[in-house]
């Protein structure tokens, strides 16, 4: 059994959040779910996470704004952006803001688990 990580999933799609959570839990990791950027900020205030999986497009506060907010609260947060769009104007912005990489939906869960393992053990990889 590998070392467990604490992961925060931020996505407005509930089915996807829970599935991702179950897959990660199944692997023995700790998981929290936020269904919006605002919720993610609140959770983040109380708790520390090894990794944040962040959807780019969400109603209300979008993923990049949330990322900026998390960065202001704590430095050196590891955030992996998730998007269904091959080209998204906001991705470059997210990377400039320190996101460690982009995972494209539909997610390949095997790849995702590998990436999570890598980014939580290595300091600053360029992901996916």
């Amino acid at each position: 059994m590998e070392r467990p990580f604490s992961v925060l999933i931020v996505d407005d799609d509930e089915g996807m959040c829970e599935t991702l959570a179950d897959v990660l839990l199944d692997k023995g990791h700790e998981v929290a779910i936020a269904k919006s950027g605002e919720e993610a900020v609140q959770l983040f205030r109380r708790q520390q996470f090894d990794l944040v999986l962040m959807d780019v497009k969400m109603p209300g506060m979008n993923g990049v704004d949330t990322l900026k907010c998390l960065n202001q609260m704590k430095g050196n947060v590891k955030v992996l952006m998730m998007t269904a769009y091959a080209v998204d104007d906001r991705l470059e912005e997210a990377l400039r803001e320190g996101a460690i990489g982009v995972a494209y939906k539909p997610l390949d869960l095997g790849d995702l688990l590998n990436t999570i393992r890598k980014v939580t053990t290595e300091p600053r990889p360029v992901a996916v």
Partner: protein
Amino acid sequence: MTVENQTKESSRVSTLDRADDESARLLVVDDDKGMRETLADILEMEGYEVDAVGEASAARELVARQFYHLALIDLRLPGVDGLDLLTQIKGTSPDTIVMVVTGHASLESSVDAINLGAEGYILKPIDIPGARSSIGRALEKQRLVFENRRLLEELRGMNVRLEQNNMELQQEIAGRKSLQAQLVESEKMLGIYQLAAGVTHEIANPLTTVMGRTQLLLRKAKELDLPREVVDSLEIIQYEAARTVDTLDNLSLYSRSRVDKYGPCNVNVAIERTLSLFGHELDDNDILLTLDLSPELPEMAANESQLMRAFAAIIRNASQAMPGGGELTIETRSKKGEVHIAFRDTGVGIPEDIRSRVFEPFFTTRDPGRGTGVGLSEAYKIVKDHGGSIGVESSEGKGTTIRISLSLEASDSTLS
């Protein structure tokens, strides 16, 4: 017939004969001095310009030097066969009418003369009024032949022009048809992109869920040692879900790895680097380049290689708008936290009806195969990626100006 009548008749003939002011030029060849001078005088009185010579060699020289409408040749010249001279004159100047003058009713040589191209013959002693009207008729006939030839020539010219016009029209029609086809095509492509992006987004989350749940169920099924059919079915679901992912990937028409680096960038430097990529291309196309770059331009956060692509697309476009050469002016200014860039060309301009479309993907006015049409749309995309704005001003036949404004700080408009 009285002398007066003759004069009237001859003046009628001569006016009929020469439509314009130019009078007909005649050549008289006769070794009998008295005869040729009399003939010359009579013909000059008719209003013709007359040269009279006594020898065949002199006649040949004159004919070679200038055009004679008509030549009167005595068939009996000393040392020369008049028929030879006739042949020579016809050879040098096929349009010259030759009439032979013969002292004998030598039917044989007259027929020979006509076979050799003579218009007719005049018998000595000369019946002046008869000769005059023969000459007049021959000249009139010649005038009609010339006129006819001129009209034919004109007709031919008009035909050629008509054919040219026709060809231009056909090209124009073909051009419009292909432009129309391109418009339809670019609209279609745009629709496909939007559809693909929309479909991908709507299906991505549920598909992730299906795959995740299947994976979890598969593990559980194996753990609990559920019957083989359950595992088989789950594996089929997993396989089909993966196939759907592949389909979605194929729908994504843009590359997914297009993540470029932002860094400190000076727009002036980016412009100069872009121009260096063009080498002598602008020079070779007779395009005069003027750089008016503000020395006060601050550095900004930008993706320099992307900006260079945008500038190159605009410069190439300007160059293609000036096929016969012209002027390209590039100007930079810094104002209120923004960098303004203007590319001004003196090219053909963009028609008003398509001006609003020049930034659309795959829109082009170039011939098919002579450009992908991603030029200005690429510039548009890059400027928008930088949170900037881009616009076009154009006047047909005078030129086009593309203006870009880039914010010194990454604008929030990129995030919306």
